[in-house]
């Protein structure tokens, strides 16, 4: 395990050099992969650690997108203040929405997030300053390298936060909530506060990812900013890599981004269909993610999968 923590900074540096040696296409693919890895890592906090499956994290991403776009296109602020506005919107939404909904358990939360994701673009399309249906155009700034490095820094910061979380009292509280919420409450954990804090962390990083993406592509509209399929991607990448682990979501995001890039060159719906199958297969065959498969397969071989199949069957 220790060797891993030495290897990580080296990997981060290696990733940081990519824009200077690789082609434009690879850098652009890299930006997308880094941003979606950030989203997956954010989902990991609420879905993986706290065990509350949010199907609406795309809303925070979209709010970050819109916060940055409104600040830059309408108020003529700088990019930095735009990111701040986006993050504030995302966090405010997580608080406003999370406080009532996270008092509830399990499926109630999941359904509420599903509903939020479905209506958010309709709500945005009625707001004047957000450009209604038409969307907003941000000032043009060319510099894929800069966006790549910003995305990388964001992913490193998010992963560092999750690494801290995994060792902290707070993270232990979230895991306790996931395993047995009643017991966690009896142990003196303020479960609602913990869950809201987890959602806020997820919202904060997702919103910043949205802000970076907005300035990079320079044009946003309600449908693309609040694209619900983002939720599919972050959930599946976290599950595939291993939810509730520090590195799983990042590994899952990198692997599946590459696969979907290949599939999407054929047809986008084929790539999405593939994601759906992977979710189903992952839940049944490898509920602990690909990193656990690599470990378990060494000792149990194919029995690893049959054991998983047997564990919960009726």
């Amino acid at each position, binding site marked *: 395990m220790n060797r891993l923590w030495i290897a990580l900074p080296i990997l981060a540096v290696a990733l940081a050099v990519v824009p200077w040696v690789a082609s434009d296409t690879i850098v652009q693919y890299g930006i997308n992969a880094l941003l979606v890895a950030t989203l997956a890592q954010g989902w990991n906090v609420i879905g993986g650690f706290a065990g509350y499956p949010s199907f609406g994290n795309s809303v925070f991403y979209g709010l970050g997108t819109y916060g940055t776009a409104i600040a830059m296109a309408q108020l003529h602020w700088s990019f930095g203040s735009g990111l701040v506005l986006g993050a504030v919107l995302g966090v405010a939404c997580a608080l406003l929405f999370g406080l009532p909904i996270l008092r509830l358990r399990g499926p109630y939360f999941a359904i509420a997030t599903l509903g939020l994701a479905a209506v958010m673009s309709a709500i945005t399309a009625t707001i004047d300053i957000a450009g209604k249906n038409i969307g907003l155009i941000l000032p043009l700034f060319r510099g894929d390298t800069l966006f790549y490095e910003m995305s990388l820094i964001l992913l490193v910061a998010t992963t560092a936060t999750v690494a801290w979380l995994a060792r902290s009292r707070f993270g232990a509280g979230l895991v306790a909530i996931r395993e047995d919420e009643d017991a966690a409450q009896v142990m003196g954990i303020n479960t609602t506060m913990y869950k809201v804090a987890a959602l806020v962390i997820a919202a904060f990083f997702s919103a910043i990812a949205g802000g970076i993406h907005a300035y990079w592509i320079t044009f946003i509209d309600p449908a693309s900013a609040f694209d619900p399929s983002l939720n599919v991607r972050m959930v599946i990448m976290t599950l595939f890599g291993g939810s509730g682990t520090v590195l799983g979501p990042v590994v899952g995001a990198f692997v599946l981004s590459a696969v979907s890039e290949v599939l999407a060159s054929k047809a986008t719906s084929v790539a999405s269909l593939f994601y759906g199958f992977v979710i*189903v297969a992952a839940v049944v065959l490898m509920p602990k993610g690909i990193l656990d498969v690599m470990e378990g397969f060494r000792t149990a071989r194919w029995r690893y999968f049959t054991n998983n199949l047997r564990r919960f*069957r009726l």
Partner: protein
Amino acid sequence: MLLFGQILVNGILLGGLYGLMGLGMGLVWGVLKIVNLAHGALIMLGGYALYYLYTGAHIDPFLALPVAMILLFALGYVLQMFLLNLIVRSAQLNTLLITFGLDVVFVYMAQLLFSADFRTINPPYAGSNVNFFGVVVPYVQLASFIVAVVLASLLFLALDKTRTGRAIRATAQNLVAARLYGVNPKRIYAITFGTGAALAGAAGGLYGIVSQITPYIGVTLTAKSFVIAILGGLDKPIGVVFGGLILGIAEAMASLYLDPTYTDIISFGLLVVVLVARPAQLVGRA
């Protein structure tokens, strides 16, 4: 006053259909403890099944409805028997995730096979209506309301009187005890999920007659079905129909007194209010 009456009737007619949607969701939730996030996708598939039975095989949509239900029942039965039974005992997080995955599979499969175009099941009598004291009631809406009520009553009778129905209720109450009395839970679970899917299929077919279907209608319908199931309570099929009526009337009223673009926002607001206000009582029962 006439306008109010018309809106109320519209709401009630829509509400019957909503009740049917909630019924399948509530049955699966109450018996299997699975909140089926693919419920809306099953509704969508039912709509397409009926659409192709009507446009391809030229069977009258109301006669083809049982066929669509049988198809969906088979799909649901197979899904539960060979997939969901594998994880039905694991944490609720996993059942949520797997049905979410199924939803994604169905939606994009539909997009590949049926294209993203709007489809309407449009029988020749679609435009005709009957007039009650100035309130216009389209025949198809009235018929779909009646079908919804009949199916709800049939489900109620089947759960109450038949051997399988009693086995379903016994399994819902106590899995171990039911097993000791010779109930095969795998089969009962598969029948229950299949029935839920068949009800979704019926709702989808009727939805295709009175409205439009695309591969993407599922998500909002899943959320609505969930709200309806909560409003009605999980243990009484008749209550769920009333839950559907409440939502249908609320939506119709919202479209009258507020800008129609806000209907989605209203039903989402209602969703949150219902979620926050009701569950405590419901969790105790389920």
